[in-house]
Each structure stands twice: as structure tokens, then as C-alpha cells.
């Protein structure tokens, strides 16, 4: 596979603050990579360095095999970007801004634009200063999705969108994915990453601490389980893979290592399961788990 994005030991300092100390990962052709990390971990800084908006201090950064700083314009012809906070000119309408973005990118699809405006239910005649956060985000998304690119970089693209619009976004991204495009998706919403990403990269304090498929990562974490049984539920406390066990009447809540989930279920059925609810680990759990070691 060809490497679309290649980062090797990327570093960036702002004054004395080391924003990025070692960022290394790749995005292959046709791959969707989820880029996750807590606030201030360096996600947006990494993306800005990739776009040539800021200049890296050290390391290698390439898109399409070209240096992101020296050949940024060549690269920019074939990428689309949506920032996490789409700031717009208050005096222009959404429609005008979308047209402008498409024109400056070059080669947009007018029909696709109109189709997306309909799908995202955006009023393009309204001045941008009247838009809510979600509507500003829609403008950025529509502009980015209406043009033909090989790499799409989304920095928390759905922040401020309602769940319906989030679903629309995910459907549209799936279409791009099917068309064989590459996507770098930075997000806080694990369900979104889970649905779309082939691989996940976790950044913490300017360093990549984990990368792999979601299943690989999930495997390392625990689910939150609520269980009530016919028999005495307290017996479950000492089953392998169960942690933080608490009990109220005959209902127990605990966290379970995902790799022991089968063994836990087997034990539970012996007691006669009345209720079994398992909540998969949230992004927070993944991090918590990570911090705990």
C-alpha cells in the first residue's frame, strides 16, 4: 500500500512549551485513521503542521510523498480540510462562503454542493454571523465534501452537530471511504471513530502512545456491566476479570476485562441471568485505562 500521510518523529515547540515531542504514524491509501487524544494533547497542532500552517521544528512530515512545508501548495490541490472550529466571516452568507471555498480549492461539484446543502439542512441565504456552532460546522463540511480530493483531514468535524447531522456526516464519509479516499479523522466521539476508522492513533502530551485497530485497543480495556441474577449475585465478585464490584440488592455493577467476557458470562448464566447490560468502553475509559497503565 502507498503511504498517503507519513509522519516520523514530528516535533514542535511554542516558546518553551513542547507541544509535540514525538509524533509518528501513517495513513495508507484508502484507509480511515481515527486520531484521538485529550484536549491539548497536540491533535490540532499535528494537523496544522501537516497543512503547513505552522512549521515543524524537527522530524519528517510528508503527504503524497511530498514535504508538507516545502511543497504545501502541490499537496493542497488534492486535500480537503475541516477545522474543529469553523470560523466564518459574519458578513457573508453560508452559500457565498461555500462557493468561495470551492473556488479557491478548485474543481468543485455544484450538484454535490446543492445536494449536501439539502442533506445537512443548511439555509445558505443566512449571514454567517447568525449561524450557530453546528451550522458553521456544516458550512465547513459542505465545502470540504463538495470538492474532489484524495485525502480528507477532519479535525473534530461533528462538534456542535446534532445526532441526526452527525449520522449524515458519517454516511457521507462512508461514501468517500468506499470511493477509496484516505481520511484522517480527529475526534472525541468514540462511536464515530468506531464506525468509520480502520485504525486508531492515540496521542497524549505530544506523543503517540498507542496505535492499532480499534479491536486491538478495545481488547485492552473494560466494559461497564450491570448484572442481576436469580441466584446470589455476590458470588460474581471473585470471578477473574471483574473489577470494582459493587452490589445493591441483587443487582451488581462492575467493570469487566473484555478478554474475560466469555468466562464472566459463563459464570453468570449458572446463576440465571435476569438482566445483563454491558456498556462498551468510552473514549474516556480508554484513556483512563491508559493513564492507569
Amino acid at each position: 500500500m502507498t503511504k498517503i500521510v507519513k509522519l516520523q518523529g514530528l516535533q514542535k515547540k511554542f516558546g518553551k512549551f513542547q507541544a509535540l515531542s514525538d509524533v509518528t504514524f501513517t495513513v495508507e491509501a484508502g484507509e480511515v485513521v481515527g486520531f484521538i487524544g485529550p484536549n491539548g494533547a497536540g491533535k490540532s497542532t499535528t494537523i496544522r503542521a501537516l497543512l503547513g500552517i505552522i512549521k515543524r521544528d524537527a522530524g519528517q512530515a510528508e503527504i503524497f510523498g511530498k514535504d508538507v512545508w516545502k511543497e504545501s501548495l502541490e499537496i493542497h490541490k488534492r486535500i480537503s480540510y475541516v477545522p474543529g472550529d469553523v470560523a466564518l466571516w459574519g458578513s457573508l452568507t453560508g452559500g457565498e462562503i461555500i462557493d468561495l471555498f470551492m473556488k479557491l480549492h478548485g474543481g468543485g461539484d455544484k450538484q454535490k454542493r446543492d445536494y449536501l446543502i439539502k442533506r445537512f439542512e443548511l439555509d445558505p441565504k443566512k449571514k454567517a454571523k447568525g449561524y450557530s456552532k453546528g451550522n458553521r460546522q456544516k458550512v465547513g463540511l459542505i465545502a470540504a465534501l463538495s470538492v474532489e480530493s484524495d485525502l480528507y483531514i477532519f479535525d473534530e468535524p461533528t462538534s456542535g452537530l446534532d445526532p441526526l447531522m452527525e449520522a449524515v456526516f458519517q454516511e457521507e464519509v462512508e461514501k468517500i471511504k468506499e470511493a477509496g479516499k484516505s481520511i484522517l479523522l480527529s475526534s472525541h466521539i468514540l462511536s464515530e471513530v468506531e464506525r468509520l476508522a480502520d485504525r486508531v492513533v492515540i496521542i497524549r502530551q505530544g506523543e503517540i502512545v498507542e496505535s492499532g485497530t480499534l479491536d486491538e485497543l478495545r481488547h485492552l480495556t473494560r466494559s461497564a456491566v450491570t448484572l442481576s441474577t436469580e441466584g446470589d449475585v455476590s458470588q460474581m465478585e471473585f470471578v477473574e476479570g471483574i473489577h470494582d464490584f459493587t452490589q445493591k440488592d441483587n443487582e451488581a455493577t462492575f467493570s469487566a476485562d473484555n478478554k474475560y467476557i466469555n468466562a464472566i458470562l459463563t459464570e453468570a448464566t449458572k446463576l440465571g441471568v435476569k438482566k445483563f447490560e454491558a456498556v462498551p468502553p468510552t473514549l474516556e475509559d480508554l484513556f483512563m485505562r491508559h493513564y492507569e497503565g
Partner: protein
Amino acid sequence: MKEKFARWDTLFLQYLKRDWKKIIFWILGVGLFSGGFVPAFEEIAKGQGLIGMYETLQNPAMISMVGPTPIETAAEYTLGAMYAHEMLLFCGLFAMIMSVLHIVGHTRKEEDLGLTELVRSFQIGRQANSLAAMAEVIVINVLLALFISGLLMIFNVDTVSVHGSILFGTSIGVAGVIGAVIGLVMAQIMPASSSATGSSLGLVGLLYIIRAGTDVSNVDLSMFNPLGWTYLTYPFTENSWLPIIFALIFSAVMVSLAFALEGGRDMGAGYLPEREGREHARRSLLSVQGLFAKLNKGVIIGWLIGFAVMGAAYGSIYGDMQTFLESNEMMAQMFAQSGVSIEESFTGTIMMVMIVLVSILPIVIVNKLFAEESRLHLSQLHATKVTRGQFYWTTIGLAILSGLIGTLLAAGGLGGTAISVMSDHGALSIGDFLAAGYNFFPSVLFFIGLAALALGWAPKLGKIIYAYLGYSFILNYFGGILDLPGWFSKTAIQSWIPQMPMDSFDAPVFISITGISIALMIIGYLGYNRRDMIEGA
């Protein structure tokens, strides 16, 4: 009442606590500037100084800049009379502008930023914020007035009387209150804080120019001008409190108006209607040039109208100059001896002041690019094939173009009006006026170059360019009055350029300053092209 103003006092105390450093700087800055120059004026007044200065300030160009004096003979012109004559209008204007910026910044701007929304969710009256901000400005201006009065008294000069000192300080404080009420009304009418600030300052500028005209033609008419109610108190001479009473009544009416207007509108809305926009962009918008032109359109048009009005207002004075000379023998002799006509002398002085003001617009445009950058407006554009050079040079080009048009309108407005009101048409042609204006164009370029340099290497310093411009303005403004050493005057770039049509054109200076300016722009570009974009700063 409670619904409207509940807990305004809490906000008020909070604001004093929040702003106390700013308030101290403000009072010290404006106060020392207004009251601290007595020793310097004592120097000027030595020997024949007072008489000389009296004659100088009878020149219409000077009256249009600093205002009139009620004194009719040079012998009666005391130090106090001179101090009030030269300082009061300008200091009042200074206090007014500070108040405009403060009141709009604490009312409409906070609304735009979404702070008001949060504040109003508490048990706070709908208009408590405006009342608190207004009360704060009044307190600041009262303190300012006391400070200035006290400062003047400390110098213990005979002709700077206690009564006059109190009136002088009060006049400046009242000027501040007038500025605040103008700002508060505009904050209700305009659709956003930037337009509220712009229109308030524009209005203050307009009042200033109108009074320049009425002061020269008929001082009684200046009494109808809110700005007139500051310097027409004539401290140390006539000591008239009547204008202060007018000003207080005016302020009370304006505050009531502002609160009525605010009560009738929704948060974040103005009274100027919003139209539905376009679904598609026009072809003219679809480029970096088109975008930047559109973004700066409002600012450019506003300032250009201002320049034209300014030129026309000063131009209207030319009609009265000969009449004025006939009534003032000494001045007539002075001009006859120097071989320069009064019109030529006036053109040279006024043109320099106007071109300093014309320089503001290009600096605004250059600084706008950094504002766009830090407001994240360009993030998505940086990810397209648009180069940084396109952003930079489009901005510089727009700045130069607006400087060219601004000079044309200011000089053309001055010349056009002057020629139409002068009885003796042969004296100056429109070409002379335009030549005098464009003669100063390198100074405009120089300011663009400085702003460009800051944009490229230290964008956060962009605002300092205004400070240097303000410094140049003051130096040029008072340069004719105060006897400054040559090197000191030369720290303002405009002083290097000869004043046409009095002096003749100096090609080497013209070319050198233009060359330096272009070099600054290129150096700025080198920085802009390689620095980190500062987003969200």
C-alpha cells in the same frame, strides 16, 4: 425598574475592580497630557512669546485645528488664555475618544462576544450592564476632571486661576461624558460593536470638522455643536459654565434615548435592518482579491467618505481667508513679507494633517489580515492551493490602492471646495492641491511598510503602528505651535517631506521614502511566508 436595572450596582463595583489598572492609566495619561504642560507653556510665554503665539493662532489654519480664543488683543493674551486655547479642544477630544472606546467595548462588544448572554442568565436586570458601564465612565471622567483641576492648581501660576482650573478639568470630563453617550446610543443602533465604534468615532470626527468650519466663519455657530460645549467654556478668560450645562442636558437626553432604544431591541440585534443574503456567491467574490475587497468594503467606504468630507470641510474655510486677512493687519503683513499666500500656507499645513489621517485606513487593512488569521477565518483557506503570498500581496495592494484613493478624495475634496468658495480663482488650481496631497504619499507608503513589517515578523505588534501614527499626528499638529528641536520633529516621517505648495517638490526625499517603504514590504513578506500562522491567539 427592577426588572431593567436589578443589581447594576454589583456589576458597577465589579467593573471598577476589573478595570482599575486601565482606569489609572487612563486618568494619568489623559490627565498628565491635559494638565501637565503648564511649565512648557511658561517657556513659550517668555519675552514676546505670548504675543507671537497670539498672532500665530489667529491664522485660520490654526483656528481650524485648535479652536478660537475670546481674547481680542495680543496684550490681553495671558498664559492661562493660551493654555486653554491650545490644549482644551484637543484634550477634550482625547477624553471623548477614550470614553467611546470604553463604553462600546463594555456594552455592545460584550454582547457580540456572548458575555452578556451569560451575565443575563443571572438575577441581573436587562439594562443593568449599560447602566453600570455608563456609571463607570461617569466616575472615571469625574476623577479625571478632579485630577486635571488639581494638577493645574499645583503649578500655582497667576493667570491659571482656581476657578479656571476647575472649569478646564470639568470641560474635559464633560467631553468624556459626551463621548460616552454618543457611543452608548450608537451601540444600540448599529448591528455590531465594530460598526458602533466606527460610527461613533466618525461622528466625533465630523463634529470636529464642522466646528473647524464654524470656528473660522462664525464662532456663535459652534455653540450648536456638542464638541463646542467643551472648549467654548473659555477657562481662564471668560470662564463660562453655560456650555457645561448644555452638555449635561444633552448627555441626559442621549442616555434616556439610549436606554429607550436598548429596551426596544433584542440582545445582539440593532435597529438597522438585516437583509436576506445570497444563496450563491457572485463571481466577483470568488478569489482572494474579491474576498478581501468584500471583507474590507465597509471600512474602506466609511473612511473614504470621511476623507472627502474632511477635505470639503477644510476647503470651505478658504472663502473666509481674505476677509479674515483684511480684518487683521498684522497677519496680512506677515504673509505679504513671507511671499507665501495665506491659502498656500494653509494648504501645506492642513494637507500634512489630512494625510496622517489618510494613513489610518491602509494600516487598518494590513492589520486586518492578522485579525483574520487569529480569528481562524483563514484555516480552511490555508489548506487550499492559495499561497501566503496571495494573502499578503493582495492585502498590501488593497492598502496602497485605498491610500491612493483616500489621498485623492482628501486633497480633491479640499481643492474642489476651496476653489468653489474662493473669490480669487487664479491663486491655486486643483492640480496644486492634488500635487500637495500626493507629495505626502510616500509617508502613507511608509506606514503601510511598517504595518507590513509587523505583520510578517511580529504580528501582535501591529497595533503599535497606530501609536506611532498618533505620535506623528501630535507632533505634526503641535509642531507649528511648539518650538521643537529639528531632530525631534524629524521623528515623524511626514516632517521629512517639504510642504507643497509653500515649498517645492523634493524628488530625492520622495524616492527615498518610497524605496524604504517598498523594502519594508518585501522584508515583511519574507517573514510572513515562513512564520507560523497564529490561530486563536
